[in-house]
């Protein structure tokens, strides 16, 4: 399956890309995607402990299962306001 990954702020800087499609095995979880993301962009390793993920615009846990076509946001610590 394929998911659409959106990188923001420091994560975008480290990945050197704003968004990309990532191929994963069926029944892959958010945690599996995180590992694949670091394989694709090793610079993200320094940031990964502070990252949170959203799936289809909802904050998600690492054990959440992904589905084909999901939109995953890679979210460094936030600072709005």
């Amino acid at each position, binding site marked *: 399956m394929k998911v659409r990954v959106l990188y*923001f702020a*420091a994560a975008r800087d480290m990945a050197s890309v704003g968004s990309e499609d990532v191929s994963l095995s069926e029944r892959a979880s958010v945690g599996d995607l995180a590992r694949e993301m670091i394989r694709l962009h090793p610079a993200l390793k320094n940031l990964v402990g502070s990252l949170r993920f959203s799936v289809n*615009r909802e904050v998600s846990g690492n054990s959440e299962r992904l589905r084909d076509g999901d939109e995953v*946001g890679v979210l460094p610590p*936030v*600072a*709005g*306001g």
Partner: protein
Amino acid sequence: MSLKKMVTITRRHIDPSLVLASVAVDSAGGAVLFVGTIREKSGGRPVKGLAYEVYKQMAVKRMREIEAEVRRKWPVKRMAMSHRYGQLKVGEVSVAVAVSCEHRAEAFEACRYAIDMIKRTLPMWKKESFGNGTEKWVKGSPIEG
């Protein structure tokens, strides 16, 4: 800026008087307006400006959820929230929240809660730029769901 849209994320200048005017209603006895602006210093260092980045579709969804939550907790008459993104200069308005209620106590509480939730749960980031040409992402907090 439209008076009809109560939740906006915009690149354009925010006029707090319009945000306040949008919550005016005869049944309300008071309105509270919070206005966030770009401070001239960060950690003692003079700041030239701030660049806000946003995950826009998720942020709009979160703001609507914040509004729904505020309305469950307090008897709100009208409520408006506007957050800016893109490049901002010192003194410019980054965010405005207005709430009108029958009585002032609940208007203050509801407005305070809304701006705190905006800070904690909106997927937004800011990069400070300094006079010597350096830039730095502002250290944030993990997003809350």
